[in-house]
């Protein structure tokens, strides 16, 4: 699971009020190397919740992100590159995601997060 995706995900348990942000407890992290693209990072940044990203990064052992978004973000290429690295290259291969409201745990195995609900969690599901 990439940290970019983590920023979009929330707990889908019905009883959770916001279910966001999910707490990461990683057991294995793999850093891959992908091509940097200025446009993509700027585009996805519009939807990124910064404090959540900082928190998630620190849960994965990256503590170098500043607590607030730097104001001159669009012009600072080296910062954008570092940001691309945090958003796309850092992969949680295995571990657990925990819903902040209900404590429900979702497993990550082989890089795949499992958000399937148990039967009793579905009973009130609006479908």
């Amino acid at each position, binding site marked *: *699971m*990439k940290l*970019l*995706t983590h*920023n*979009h*995900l*929330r707990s*889908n348990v*019905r009883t959770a009020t916001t*279910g*966001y942000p999910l707490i990461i407890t990683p057991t294995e992290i793999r850093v*891959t190397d*992908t*091509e940097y*693209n200025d*446009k*993509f990072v700027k*585009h*996805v940044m519009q*939807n990124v919740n910064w404090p959540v990203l900082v928190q998630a990064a620190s849960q994965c052992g990256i503590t170098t992100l500043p607590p607030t978004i730097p104001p001159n973000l669009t012009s600072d290429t080296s910062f954008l590159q570092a940001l691309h690295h945090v958003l*796309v290259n850092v*992969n949680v291969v295995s571990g657990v995601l925990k819903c902040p409201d209900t404590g429900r745990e979702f497993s990550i195995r*082989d*890089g*795949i*997060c*499992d*958000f*399937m*609900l*148990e*039967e*009793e969690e*579905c*009973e009130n*599901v609006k*479908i």
Partner: protein
Amino acid sequence: MASQPSTRSSSSSASTASTATSTATQYLVHFVHRHLDFRKCDFDSSLIAQNLSPSSIYAASNFDMLRPFLICTFPDDETATKVAKSTVLIKHIYKVNSVGETTEDCVAKSKPFTSSPTESWKIVFDTFASKFTKSEQSKIMHQFIDLHKPSGPVKMKDPTTTMSIIHEYPVKISGAPMYPRFDHSGSPIPSNVDRPPLSVYFCSNFAAGGRDLVEKYTLKKRTYLGPTSMDNELSLIMCNAALTRPQSYVLDPFVGTGSILFSASVLGGICVGTDIDTRVLKGKGEGGVMRNFLDCNLPLPEIIRGDNSLHSRLFRSREVYDSIITDPPYGIRAGARKSGTTEDRRKPIPDEHRHDHIPQTQVYPVGDVMADLLTVAARGLKVGGRLVYLIPSLKDFEEGDLPTHECLELEWVCYQPLGLLLGRRMVVMKKVKGWVEEKEEEWKEKCWPNGKESADKVEKLREQMAEAAKKERAEGEKQGWGGKLHKTKKQRKKEMRNEVELKKFTD
């Protein structure tokens, strides 16, 4: 808007000939003669992806579904090369030297094709829907050579200039040549009828199309495959129709074995896929969805196991994706499932089994699958982003039956026949209106414009197909020919056995 009906008018060849006199450099686009109904959509999408407007490149009236050649004007060579490379349905783009209605006309209009005495050259001969013998070909080639007398050396391997003489003949709607010259055994068909070509082109080879991707990433070379793996060519066409470019953010909500996201990655997309079925995601020891990406050194997609009917509960963000490309499950290869159970009497799961308990799923009716897909697209796509999906159906399903959404506008519908009864459509929709959370239910209600009936037409297709085949067989038997044409495997085996026995007996 949607794919155009094939209008074969005699004026079309005349109009291409008349435009040949204008001064701007003309290019001849040679399409692959496959996926005929997809070609216009694919070509236009490639143009739009390069920020070109299709109407400035070619006149829509010149496009004929049954003709694989199209005369275009590109702003410069570089754009033409980029367009050619971006699509799998273009074989080659040529630079036009002359266009004629007959060979003689084309020769007369042609201009010198080499510019210096050191420039090496060769001429190749190509024909669509007809054949020329070697001696006929050489005769035509010499007409051009004798007229221009190129002074440079002839070089068969890697010459500076390669010229092509292309004769285009008409085809019937079925795709068969209008004037076949040889029968099945290869002997010439003698005919006194004049065989007028549609057009004769004399042009220099310029840029090869992106066909090599089809062979390079063919399904045969992949380690991880499943019954739902999508044909590489079609998935590349779908990704192109979705305007997938490098760094596009792409979602496939029914990822399965990941074959669509694979093609999106080939085109440079950054992919997210969700699926409810953990078996296809993990595979049986081959490594699962990620395997093919790892084999081909493509960036890994983000895979999440989740339920598409609960997409909005799982994803917080809206309007992030550039494209959503998917082949939803319709029950032909794989049926759709969603979380929950229909059983009333359920035993509570004991705590010692809870860690490896597999949650139950229930059937997910096609009507809801589509309504949810359009809702996910309306919510997830950026304004201007595209949703591309496939929908199979029998003959009774019409374009008016397609699901609709207030935020999405229908751009293209391309039909691919899959046999006599079944066919599938590629539907391309563009997001035109921003998402309003409060209107979700109201919009969802209006998904099927013709009511539940449309959805029922795509429900249980496998059963419907079996029923239609049975009906046809019964009809055939009534008319007296069905029995012979539609023998079951068992009947054929029995007959063969009888024949063998009979032979033994007579020997």
